[in-house]
């Protein structure tokens, strides 16, 4: 380090490194300047100075200096290392790895650089590289325990299970066990980690024997028993598994996994035939319930298991189960029973039971008496008045859930009249109003709930959300600020710093509705950036977990991080952004926000408008390219992180206009996001719907075909799939304008693998009609088919028949109606869209938002 310098400067250089490492940036810079005064071309000092400047967010200068330093001293591993660190700080992992490797070529045994490289390799899941780096580190420093553990991990992730186990064993044999709590805990954890590797390898026998051996040092008893149960079950050692599962249940009766393991053990031991399994499971629940009468889950599970043949039994059990809630006033009853709503007959039974309660309370002031051969003890005398309230609240939620909004409103109003001080009732009412399309009153009601307990963050969040749903952005921001006020940053930047993604998604949607694409994009982009941060955050764990030997949670973390973009916020923001990009592509005039331009465009004929729009897109792309150049000239002033000085990301370009202007081609940007969705949300049919929209606009027919096939594979009989099949036929296969420009090979594939495969010999409308008749119960599919028929319709007669289907809105939620209205307006005739909207207004007269 600094070896080419005289000894005085050499020690100054070491000082400089120390200052940098302890984040004393000012002193570091001064020291660097001191050396440079005498040796202005000293490469390593230049590089180090660059690194220091990078830490105080002077990106441009940093890159310049580091590059200059490197140029002056290409043979220095320090310069290459610094170069790598700089890239690493900008999350350019691949470039950083390359620089580290270069540094290692010069100094192959540099432990610091090897460690940094290993971090990058695990971060990028470059396992082959990781294992070789870890091997080198272990060879160099066999005395350090985390080098052993990390090498074991490297083998584990590459599925060299036997090797991984061997390494842990070798390492464990060398350590002298400490007696203090922490080292016992750590030893146990390491052994449990080893055990999980044995299990993952399918070596259940060895895993069980190993568990037996480590029994005394494992602190996490539940984890120990769970491992035993899993391995025993895998080996079908059912009797033993049963015992362990029971022990687990004794520890926690409300864990459904334990129940499932218990059931599996008993049922396979007794070799119970499929059709008798539910009965037997219920018996097992009942046994447990007898000895643990206070536990809820053993009472709850049979309600899911019972089938229609045991209706009477179901009603009896339901009755005694819900009384427990009603008598204690637990508002969560409705959520608890949600899974029962999948069976129509259970829904009816629930309704009958609760209306029966209501009548009995009205007539006698008490719940009906129960015949006491079974579960609940009979209470004599009057029920508490609170029971009346909870019954009404439940009925409101019940009718809301089954779409009887009038019934729901009737009960919630009566409940509030009965007891006007319960916050939950106002929340339930807000939700019902939302389902009525009455977003204005829903927001007022959510605000009423919020005001009843100003200290409750959840109520504040809900209210903010409802405000945003009706585009009340200012109210929402003021509201949410009540909980973000402390600290230095304010407003949206504070929310950004808190990674408040629900807010960014909701406000993004609001701005889309308000036709403010810049602001919308800014917020949706913010969500995307949080996920980049989450992934970056792993770095902290790579070192921490290896040191702490909490390997089981570390491996879990790696798995979670691998899938983190499948989280609902990421997919939601990505989908909204893609839709926005499509809209901006179709209507580029929105981007510049000029009303005149929009008006001028509106006056043109369709063909002329298309031409003008295409011209507009091109000029926008040019501008974006120019912007990009300008930025490059300014160096990498992008400022990845707001921390450490300067404005935060939300505060620079707050209205997103720069962000918006910087996008050259909205379809390219949409395609980029789609690649993420296709990877992380492949089971979401919307992913493929959007992929189709983008593909067709980019004239990528094979991609369009792929999207249709994927949608059909995920949800073959859904509205989405049916409409995509129809559109592929109409917009691609039968569209001369498109097909005339496509390659013959492409057309060949599309026509052989396209809709013919799905539709077969039927006519297109025959195909749609068949699905429509098949799916009589699902209103969403029926309406989707109506829309598809309207697309196909060749004459007025067919059109009006399709419209008939579309105007029968029974069973359709307000949300569905709203989506349909928006889809229809992309292709149907104005008067058709209008008459559809009329039908919606008739069904949802309270609706306060434009459709």
């Amino acid at each position, binding site marked *: 380090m600094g070896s080419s310098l005289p000894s005085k400067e050499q020690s100054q250089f070491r000082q400089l490194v120390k200052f940098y490492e302890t984040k004393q940036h000012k002193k570091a810079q001064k020291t660097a300047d001191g050396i440079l005064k005498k040796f202005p071309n000293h490469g390593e000092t230049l590089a180090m100075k660059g690194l220091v400047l990078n830490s105080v967010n002077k990106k441009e200068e940093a890159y310049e200096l580091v590059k200059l330093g490197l140029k002056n001293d290409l043979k220095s591993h320090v310069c290459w290392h610094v170069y790598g660190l700089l890239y690493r700080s900008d999350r350019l992992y691949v470039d950083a790895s390359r620089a580290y490797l270069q540094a290692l070529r010069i100094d192959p045994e540099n432990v610091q650089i090897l460690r940094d490289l290993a971090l990058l390799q695990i971060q990028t899941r470059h396992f082959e590289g990781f294992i070789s780096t870890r091997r080198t580190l272990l060879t160099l420093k066999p005395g350090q325990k985390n080098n052993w553990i990390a090498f074991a991990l490297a083998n584990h992730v590459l599925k060299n299970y036997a090797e991984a186990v061997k390494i842990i064993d070798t390492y464990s044999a060398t350590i002298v066990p400490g007696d203090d709590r922490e080292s016992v805990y750590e030893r146990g954890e390491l052994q449990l980690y080893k055990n999980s590797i044995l299990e993952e390898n399918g070596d259940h026998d060895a895993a069980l024997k190993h568990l037996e051996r480590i029994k005394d040092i494992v602190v996490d008893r539940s984890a120990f028993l769970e491992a035993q149960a899993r391995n025993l079950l895998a080996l079908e050692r059912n009797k033993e598994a049963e015992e362990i599962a029971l022990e687990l249940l004794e520890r926690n009766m409300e864990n459904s996994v334990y129940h499932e393991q218990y059931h599996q053990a008993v049922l396979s031991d007794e070799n119970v035939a499929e059709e008798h399994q539910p009965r037997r499971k219920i018996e097992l629940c009942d046994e447990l319930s007898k000895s643990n009468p206070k536990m809820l889950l053993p009472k709850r599970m049979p309600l899911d298991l019972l089938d229609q043949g045991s209706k009477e039994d179901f009603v009896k059990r339901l009755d005694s189960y819900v009384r427990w809630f009603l008598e*204690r006033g637990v508002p969560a009853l409705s959520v608890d029973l949600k899974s029962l709503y999948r069976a129509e007959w259970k829904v009816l039974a629930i309704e009958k039971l609760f209306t029966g309660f209501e009548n009995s309370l009205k007539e006698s002031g008490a719940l009906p008496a129960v015949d006491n051969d079974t579960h609940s003890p009979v209470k004599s005398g009057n029920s508490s008045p*609170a029971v009346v309230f909870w019954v009404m609240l439940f009925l409101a939620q019940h009718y809301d859930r089954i779409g009887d909004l009038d019934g729901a409103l009737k009960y919630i109003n009566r409940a509030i009249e009965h007891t*006007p*001080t319960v916050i939950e009732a106002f929340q339930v009412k807000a939700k019902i109003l939302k389902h009525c399309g009455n977003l204005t009153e829903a927001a007022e009601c959510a605000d009423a709930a919020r*005001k*009843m*307990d100003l200290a409750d963050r959840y109520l504040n969040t809900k209210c903010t959300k409802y405000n945003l749903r009706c585009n009340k952005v200012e109210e929402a921001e003021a509201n949410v600020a009540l909980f973000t006020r402390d600290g230095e940053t304010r407003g949206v930047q504070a929310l950004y710093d808190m990674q408040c993604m629900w807010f960014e998604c909701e406000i993004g949607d609001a701005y889309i509705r308000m036709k403010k694409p810049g602001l919308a994009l800014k917020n949706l982009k913010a969500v995307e950036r949080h996920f980049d941060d989450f992934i970056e955050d792993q770095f902290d764990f790579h070192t921490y977990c290896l040191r702490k030997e909490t390997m089981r949670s570390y491996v879990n973390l790696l798995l979670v991080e691998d899938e983190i973009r499948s989280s609902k916020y990421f997919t939601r923001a990505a989908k909204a952004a893609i839709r926005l990009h499509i809209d901006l592509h179709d209507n580029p005039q929105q981007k510049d926000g000029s009303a005149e331009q929009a008006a001028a465009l509106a006056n043109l004929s369709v063909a002329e408008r298309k031409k003008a729009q295409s011209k507009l897109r091109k000029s926008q792309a040019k501008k974006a390219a120019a912007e990009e150049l300008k930025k490059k000239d300014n160096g990498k002033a992008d400022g990845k992180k707001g921390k450490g000085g300067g404005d935060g990301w939300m505060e620079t370009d707050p209205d997103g206009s720069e962000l918006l202007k910087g996008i050259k081609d909205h379809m390219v940007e949409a395609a980029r996001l789609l690649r993420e969705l296709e990877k992380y949300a492949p089971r979401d049919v919307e992913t493929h719907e959007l992929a189709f929209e983008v593909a067709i606009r980019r004239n990528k027919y094979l991609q369009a075909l792929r999207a249709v096939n994927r949608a059909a594979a995920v949800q073959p009989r859904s509205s989405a799939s049916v409409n995509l099949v129809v559109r592929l036929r109409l917009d691609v296969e039968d569209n001369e304008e498109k097909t005339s420009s496509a390659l013959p090979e492409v057309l060949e594939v599309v026509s052989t693998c396209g809709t013919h495969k799905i539709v077969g010999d039927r006519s297109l409308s025959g195909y749609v009609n068949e699905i429509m008749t098949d799916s009589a119960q699902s209103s969403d599919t029926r309406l989707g088919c109506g829309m598809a028929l309207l697309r196909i319709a060749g004459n007025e007669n067919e059109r009006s028949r399709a419209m008939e289907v579309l105007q029968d809105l029974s069973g359709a939620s307000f949300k569905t109606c709203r989506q349909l209205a928006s889809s229809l307006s992309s292709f149907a005739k104005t008067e058709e869209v209008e008459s559809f909207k009329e039908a919606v207004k008739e069904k949802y007269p309270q609706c306060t938002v434009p459709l």
Partner: protein
Amino acid sequence: MSPRQERAAIEFGTVNEKNLVQLQRLNTALFPVKYNDKFYQEAIRAPDGFVRLAYFQTILVGAVMVRFESNANGSSRLYIMTLGVLAPYRERGIGAQLLDHVFELLASHPLCSNVSEIALHVHTENTEAIAFYKNRGFEVVELIEKYYKRGVDPPDCYLLSKKVEPRGNGS
């Protein structure tokens, strides 16, 4: 008399600016008079124990609010501004427990050592409340005509009062 049920178990709570609106909702349901902001500001700032919320199975069902008033002659009284229980929750002893709380204030609150009277106004038609107080030692001392400004018919009320022995300082 039929065998009486036990008094309903309640928990007392206090009012602050975070949950003030709950008290407002309760009072709106209970009283024909609409109280203004000043009233609720007084509620928040009232001396310890002068406002009590009653929770039954975690639900706010009743409240009492009193004010300390000193007379020119040096004596003083506790004035009950509101005392009420939501209709479905009445006749289970919750009102009595709220009134008991007022008696306890008299017995132990430092401000109340010289109090010689508890008083309140009740609408002339509110027979339920009048009976409730009479059964607990209150007497009608005055009929005040045109007491209420609006929303109440007839606009008249009784002044109810219960004399108590001042407990005096330190005794």
